[in-house]
C-alpha cells in the first residue's frame, strides 16, 4: 500500500499547476474560516475580560445579569448571607461600573472602574509600576496599561483626573491578561472609594466573589444562593453565559456564522471543483491502472490519500497564514481582538475534513465508474 500511496503522491504533486490551485483553494478557505472565527472568539474572550482578570472561582449576581458589563446592584445582606453559607471559604464584594473622567486637558473620557474589596483586595491586578498598598492612599487609582491606556492621556504615577467632582490620582500601573471589549480604559480602586465617587443606585454590590471550601461545595452554594433569589455561577459558567449572550442574543453570532459558512462554501467549491477536474484529467490513467489490475480499494486509497494530503497541507498553510497575520496585526494594533484557540483550529480542521471527504467522494465515484474497456477503445 505504501508504494500505491507514493504513486498517488507523485501523480498529485508532480502536476504542479493543479496541485497549486488545490492548495490555494484550501489555504484560502482555511484562512477565511480561521480569521473569522478567531475574530469572534477574540470578541467573546474580551467580553468576559472582568471575569477572567478578577479570577474568582464563583460569582454571585442578580439572575437578570447577562454579561459582566451590565451588573445589577445587590443589597449588602446578600454578601452577609453568602458569607454565612455552608461550604463558603470566603466571600468579598466587587464593584464594576463605568464613570466619566475629566482629564487634565479638560476632555472627558469614559472608563471602566473596578472596586476591589477593601480588606483583601481580592482580584487585584499584577502591577507594572507602583505598590499595591498605595491603592489605599487618598484618591488612589491604579490604571491598567492596555490598548486603551493612551485614552487617559498616557498618565504616569501622580497624574490626576476628576471623577464626579472627586480628585483621582494614579498610584500604579497594572497589566491584565484580557483588555476590555468596549474600547475604554480600566481603573482599579477600592470598593468603598468606588461607591463613594461614582453615583450609584440604592444597591451597590455588583458581584459577590466566592471561594468555596472545595469544588464539591459548589452545588450546595449554588442551591443556597438560588434559595436567596440570586444566581451563583462558576467562573467558566459565567464566561459561557456571557458568550451565549453574544452568540445567541446579538447579531454577532449569526453574522459571523454566515461569514464562516460562506468561506466554507467558497473553499468547498474551489477545492472540490479543482480536485474533481484533477480526477477527470487523470481518468484515463486511473482506467489504465484498473485495466492493469489495480483493485478498487487501492484506487479509493489513492484518491483518499490525495484529498487528505491536499487538505492537511492546505490546513497547515491556512493556519500558518492566519497566525502570521494575527501576530503582525497584534504587533501593530495592541487592541486587536482576534485569537487562535483549539476551538477554531478544531472547527477549521473539521470543515477541511468535510471538504476533503466531499471532494474525494465525487472523485471516487467517478473513478469506480470507469470501464477499462473504454481505455481499450481509446
Amino acid at each position, binding site marked *: *500500500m*505504501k*508504494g*500505491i500511496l*507514493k*504513486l498517488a503522491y*507523485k*501523480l498529485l504533486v*508532480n*502536476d504542479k499547476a493543479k496541485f497549486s490551485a488545490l492548495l490555494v483553494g484550501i489555504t484560502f478557505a482555511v484562512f477565511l474560516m480561521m480569521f473569522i472565527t478567531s475574530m469572534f472568539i477574540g470578541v467573546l474572550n474580551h467580553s468576559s475580560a472582568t471575569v477572567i482578570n478578577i479570577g474568582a472561582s464563583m460569582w454571585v449576581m442578580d439572575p437578570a445579569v447577562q454579561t459582566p458589563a451590565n451588573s445589577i446592584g445587590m443589597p449588602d445582606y446578600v454578601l452577609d448571607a453568602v458569607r454565612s453559607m455552608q461550604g463558603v471559604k470566603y466571600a468579598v464584594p466587587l464593584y464594576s461600573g463605568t464613570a466619566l473622567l475629566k482629564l487634565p486637558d479638560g476632555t472627558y473620557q469614559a472608563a471602566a472602574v473596578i472596586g476591589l474589596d477593601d480588606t483583601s483586595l481580592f482580584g487585584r491586578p499584577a502591577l507594572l509600576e507602583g505598590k499595591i498598598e498605595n491603592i489605599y492612599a487618598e484618591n488612589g487609582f491604579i490604571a491598567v496599561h492596555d490598548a486603551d491606556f493612551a485614552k487617559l492621556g498616557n498618565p504616569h504615577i501622580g497624574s490626576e483626573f476628576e471623577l464626579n467632582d472627586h480628585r483621582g490620582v494614579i498610584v500604579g500601573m497594572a497589566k491584565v491578561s484580557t483588555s476590555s471589549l468596549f474600547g475604554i480604559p480600566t481603573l482599579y480602586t477600592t470598593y468603598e472609594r468606588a461607591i463613594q465617587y461614582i453615583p450609584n443606585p440604592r444597591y451597590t454590590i455588583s458581584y459577590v466573589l466566592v471561594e468555596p471550601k472545595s469544588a464539591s461545595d459548589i452545588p450546595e452554594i449554588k442551591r443556597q444562593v438560588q434559595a436567596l433569589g440570586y444566581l451563583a455561577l462558576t467562573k467558566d459558567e459565567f464566561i459561557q453565559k456571557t458568550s451565549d449572550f453574544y452568540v445567541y442574543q446579538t447579531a454577532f453570532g449569526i453574522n459571523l456564522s454566515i461569514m464562516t459558512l460562506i468561506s466554507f462554501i467558497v473553499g468547498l467549491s474551489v477545492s472540490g471543483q479543482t480536485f474533481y477536474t484533477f480526477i477527470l484529467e487523470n481518468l*484515463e*490513467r486511473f*482506467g*489504465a*491502472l*484498473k*485495466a*492493469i*489490475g*489495480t*483493485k*478498487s*480499494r*487501492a484506487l479509493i486509497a489513492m484518491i483518499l490519500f490525495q484529498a487528505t494530503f491536499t487538505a492537511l497541507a492546505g490546513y497547515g498553510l491556512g493556519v500558518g497564514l492566519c497566525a502570521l497575520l494575527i501576530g503582525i496585526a497584534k504587533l501593530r494594533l495592541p487592541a486587536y481582538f482576534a485569537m487562535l484557540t483549539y476551538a477554531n483550529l478544531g472547527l477549521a480542521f473539521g470543515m477541511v475534513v468535510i471538504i476533503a471527504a466531499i471532494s474525494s467522494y465525487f472523485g471516487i465515484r467517478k473513478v469506480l465508474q470507469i*470501464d*477499462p*474497456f473504454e*481505455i*481499450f*477503445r*481509446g
Partner: protein
Amino acid sequence: MPDTAIKASGLVKWFGEAEAKTTALTEVNLEAYFGEMVYIVGPSGSGKTTLLSVLSGILRPNSGSVLVEGTDIWALDADRLAEFRLNKIGFVFQDYHLFPRLTTAENVAIPLILKRKDWDESVSEAVKYLEIVGLKGRAQLPPVKLSGGEQQRVAIARAIAGKPDILIMDEPTASLDGDTGRAVVSFVHGNILNAKRCIVIVTHDNRIYEFADRILKMENGRLTGIEKARHEE
C-alpha cells in the same frame, strides 16, 4: 502440441438493448498457445478490440467462457480477477496510457508497485526492463520527451515488468510510422516472445503480418478464418 494459454468458447457479447442492441461477438471460439504470437485482424467495427477485452478479463461477455492457463477468469470475483490480470496479463494500450508526470522508469515500475513491491526497488528493477527495450538511458525522462516509438517501447517494458505469461497488445503500430512500427513488433517477436509466453495482438496493419505465428480474421463479430498459419508455412 504446445500448451494452451487461452481457450475461449462460445463468446457472445452485445451492447445496448432492444432496438439499440449491437452484437459485437457471435459464438467466438479461439485458442492461443504459449510460444506463439497471434494476430486478430479485421476491419474497423469487426469486434477485434471487444474480443481482446473479453479475453483479457476487462469486458464481461454475455455468454461463453474464457480459460486462461486453465482458470475460468469470468468465474472470478472482481478483486481476484484484478489480481489475475496483474499477475498473468500484460497490456500494451493503443494510446500507451503512460503517466506524463512520472519518469519513464516510474511508469515501467507501476505493475511492480501494484504487486506491493517497495518503490525504490521497483524503480531500479524497472530500469532493467528499460534496458531490455533499449531505453536504459531514458529512465529519468518523462514520457513526453520520448518519440512515439520510444513511448511504445516504454509501454511494452511496463507490460512485461510484471512478468506476465500473456501479453495483450492493441493496435501497437497505430500511432507509429511504418518503419518504427515494424521495428517495434520485430523487437517484441525477437526479444519478448518466448516459449512460456503468449502474445495476442489486435491490428489491421498488414506491414507487420510477417511476424505473426497465426493470423485470425474477424468480420461482423465472428472469427471467419485463419489468414496465416506460420507453423504450416
